[in-house]
């Protein structure tokens, strides 16, 4: 048994580091928050998902504000793909009620490991300039600023990317995470969008996607104010510190590895606890 003030302090400190690591590695804070709440503090997974979702909206909106102003975010592409992510998020939040919590824990672990592996991948910057009729019709092709002037790019495989975004939305709604890694995967590997654009546009979409499932969870009583308060404030402050550090250092290579090890450990714990039915 723990008093409210002690739990709040632990949550605040834990969330701060979750936000810091999430921003340094690009995986997002939710990945540490849900295991911290469920495995360490024995909070029911429904409350954990609710609190994580709130922190996801705070960090993505906060950082999207900065990126949008730099003109890297492709707003039309984001808007178009948000059809798929919000519809997916709605479906995810609606089916979450009917899915046993231990299955949710196992799924969380699997997505966690997949995202960690993807974050370690080497990122080769490629600029696609093939013509695509659908991308042209939808005005998805654009340009982004570089030190050597604006670079034009085109978008490939619009349908495939749209479908993958729907899946990312379902996962986000089901698990209460931003699923930014899946969104970047859809835009990077399927739609061949330059890495800088896909990262910022994915971040831009995460807030709306999370809001589409949060409106369901809010009414279902998953979002507890006492729990969400330290989590949202902690993750946001951690993410802000993380973005400050990123500007000053370039050697986040070793940090990615540390995080990958931590994340894999957490994922295995979530899967194990899911299997023995403790979550």
């Amino acid at each position, binding site marked *: *048994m*723990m*008093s*409210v*003030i*002690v*739990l*709040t302090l632990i949550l605040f400190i834990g969330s701060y580091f979750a936000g810091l690591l999430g921003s340094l590695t690009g995986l997002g804070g939710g990945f540490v928050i849900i295991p911290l709440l469920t495995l360490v503090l*024995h*909070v029911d997974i*429904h*409350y954990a998902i609710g609190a994580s979702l*709130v922190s996801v*909206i*705070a960090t*993505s*909106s*906060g950082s*999207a*504000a*900065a990126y*949008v*102003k730099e*003109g890297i*975010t492709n*707003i039309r592409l984001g*808007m178009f793909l*948000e059809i798929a992510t*919000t*519809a997916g*998020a*709605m479906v995810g*939040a*609606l089916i979450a009620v009917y899915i046993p919590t231990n299955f949710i824990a196992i799924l969380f672990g699997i997505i966690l490991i997949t995202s960690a592996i993807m974050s370690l991948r080497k990122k080769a910057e490629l600029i696609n300039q093939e013509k695509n009729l659908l991308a042209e019709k*939808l*005005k998805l092709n654009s*340009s982004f600023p570089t030190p050597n002037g604006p670079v034009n790019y085109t978008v490939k495989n619009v349908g495939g990317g749209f479908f993958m975004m729907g899946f990312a939305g379902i996962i986000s709604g089901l698990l209460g995470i931003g699923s930014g890694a899946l969104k970047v995967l859809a835009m990077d590997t399927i739609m061949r969008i330059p890495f800088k654009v896909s990262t910022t546009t994915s971040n831009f979409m995460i*807030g*709306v996607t999370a*809001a*589409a*499932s*949060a*409106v*369901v*969870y*809010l*009414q*279902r*009583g998953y*979002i*507890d*104010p*006492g*729990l*969400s*308060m330290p989590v*949202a*404030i902690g993750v*946001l402050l951690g993410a802000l510190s993380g973005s400050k550090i990123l500007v000053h250092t370039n050697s986040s290579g070793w940090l990615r590895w540390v995080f990958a090890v931590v994340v894999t450990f957490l994922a295995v714990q979530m899967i194990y606890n899911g299997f023995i039915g403790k979550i």
Partner: protein
Amino acid sequence: MNKQPMSQKTFRDTDMQAVIGWILRLGVLLSMSIIFIGGVIYLYRHGQAIANYHTFKGIPDFVHNIHGILNGIITFRGQAIIQAGIILLIATPIIRVIFSAIGFVLEKDYLYIGITILVLLIIMASMLSGHAG
């Protein structure tokens, strides 16, 4: 990209980006301040209570509906104030979508007016389905 001369005062993509950035920043700043203030009141009043989140039992009635939250704000209940801040935070990206729609109207981009309205309809459907469930 749009390359209109500055004298031609039309609404452009860069203007929309500036407005969107401004809305997101303001929304996060405002909602986080409200959550913080509510948190201070909540901890001052209930800091010594025993926290129990081990089993899921929903949230207290006075933070579950708009009427209860409004009532709670007037009577200075910390949890109600936090919940109001959280609702504003959730509304922030949705407000961003509404402003994008206005932006596309000013740009006369009918395709994207349609796409933006579709996204808003999906969020509304989600809101209503959560209410029914």
